[in-house]
């Protein structure tokens, strides 16, 4: 029963986003909104800059986070000693509990000035800063996901490598990684979803300019921060209604990400 209610709620949200976003489609074509520029004064409510900002930031953060997480997971699961690995795994688990707002807060006061001074231009509030903070934010989840998939490698395979005199690195490269490709891809895809959905870090650090970003040091606005910024606005304006389109886009991207992750997992199970 309650499961049914929950599921209805999920569909309700999507329906709500679309219905509320509909007036926008009346004014101009959907494609224009998705690909157009944002300039409320000229009656332009395109959310393309935000979509691009979102993609830049989440892709970059995953790109930074992926190698770091893979390295950490490899160390904890395979390369490191048992004792050290246990402690480190505990720490990583603890990290998942650090509130997002704290990453944002420290990012604003520590990283932003650092980036500004190092880069020598821009305000420091930019795609790069936001991506760096997000990379650290999503790493623990990604690591835990990788470790989980590493640990599913059958014990007997690892014993076989040990018995043949293989080193830990060889065990990692020849047995564990090939066996876990699917797990790694799934974990990365899900982390991408997490980076995509984060609001606070981008809102506090990315600068929120409504422009199509050209460089890593450009200020940018994500779909999520756009919602946070505009939701305080006049709620019958077209501006306000555009955030429902943002919501719907986020929703759809999330759905695709999760569907993708599930498909990959499913295919893994059949083999």
């Amino acid at each position: 029963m309650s499961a049914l209610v929950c599921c209805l709620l999920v569909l309700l949200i999507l329906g709500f986003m679309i219905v509320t976003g509909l007036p926008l489609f009346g004014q101009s074509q959907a494609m224009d909104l998705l690909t157009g520029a944002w300039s409320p004064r000229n009656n332009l409510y395109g959310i393309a800059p935000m979509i691009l900002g979102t993609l830049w930031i989440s892709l970059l953060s995953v790109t930074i986070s992926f190698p770091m997480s893979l390295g950490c997971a490899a160390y904890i699961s395979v390369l490191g000693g048992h004792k050290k690995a246990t402690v480190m795994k505990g720490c990583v688990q603890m990290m998942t509990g650090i509130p997002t707002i704290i990453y944002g807060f420290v990012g604003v006061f520590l990283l932003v000035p650092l980036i500004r001074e190092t880069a020598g231009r821009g305000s420091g509030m930019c795609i790069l800063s936001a991506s760096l903070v997000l990379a650290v934010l999503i790493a623990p989840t990604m690591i835990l996901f990788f470790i989980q998939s590493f640990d599913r490698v059958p014990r007997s395979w690892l014993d076989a490598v040990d018995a043949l005199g293989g080193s830990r690195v060889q065990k990692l490269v020849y047995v564990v990684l090939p066996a876990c490709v699917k797990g790694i891809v799934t974990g990365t895809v899900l982390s991408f979803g997490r980076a995509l959905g984060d609001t606070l870090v981008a809102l506090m650090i990315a600068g929120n300019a409504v422009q199509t970003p050209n460089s890593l040091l450009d200020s940018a606005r994500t779909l999520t921060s756009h919602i946070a910024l505009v939701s305080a606005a006049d709620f019958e304006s077209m501006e306000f209604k555009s955030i429902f389109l943002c919501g719907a886009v986020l929703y759809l991207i999330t759905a695709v990400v999760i569907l993708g992750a599930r498909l990959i997992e499913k295919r893994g199970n059949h083999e």
Partner: protein
Amino acid sequence: MNRWGEKAVYALSVISCMMLFGSVATLLCYLLIKGLPALNLGLIFGSTPVGDALLLKRQVFDGIFPAMAGTLALILLAITIAVPLGLLAGIYMAEYSGRFTRNVFGFLFDLLSGIPSIVVGLFGFSAILFLHHHVSEALVPSLLVSALSLAFLVLPYIVKTTQMALETVPRQTRVTGLALGATKLQNIVFCLIPESFSTILGGIILAVGRCAEDTAVIMLTGAVASAGLPNSLFKGFEALPFYIYYISSQYADQAELNQGFGACIVLLLICATLFILAAIIQRKVKHTLLYRH
């Protein structure tokens, strides 16, 4: 693979560990250095005497006491709403659903847990706007709306934890109760839930942590910069993470900024405590709790 290649792989993995742990350690140290000096009773209660504040005789203006109380009220409410629903749905998913429903609902719950929290907040906000327009003028963004939205946010998490906990009960334990003549319901209540109780409880505590830290949902559904102690479900409220967000963007002077750092440490402590609690419970607590006569 030659010796050097091996060394390189090993070194890279050590470097990644150092990068991650280094940055998190830097973050924490920075926070501690900046925030520890601010960590005193004044941070929490401002200039109001502690006793008076706790007995609710006087309001606290310059402290984070109202924000802490708001966060507490928010957590309690959200969890009270989410846990019964989540448990029931989880039990349904694990024990009663057919193959098809399990797949479909499973996907929907995954989807729900993946929805960005700001979208959940936006939904809560627009839903209450809608009700405000069409049902009653008295309905405005408030503590209750935030709690409902948050409950919605953690619901899939509780459902999944419950479901997984029940599904991973070993077959042997699963049939023990049945072999002794338990009905399906008895088996769930007396055998399966106690067996997986610690996992479920751990999951709930993590959900509490999620409620404590969330900012995106509450900033759209009722958190305000200044409201005093929460005293009604239908009014705005203060919350710790929102306070930190507010301070970060518009502190008036150094003292207020220091308070922001202090508040960060308080929030971090709260979350860490919850987290450690969850870990201890999942590992240590055996399932005695439900067997007391």
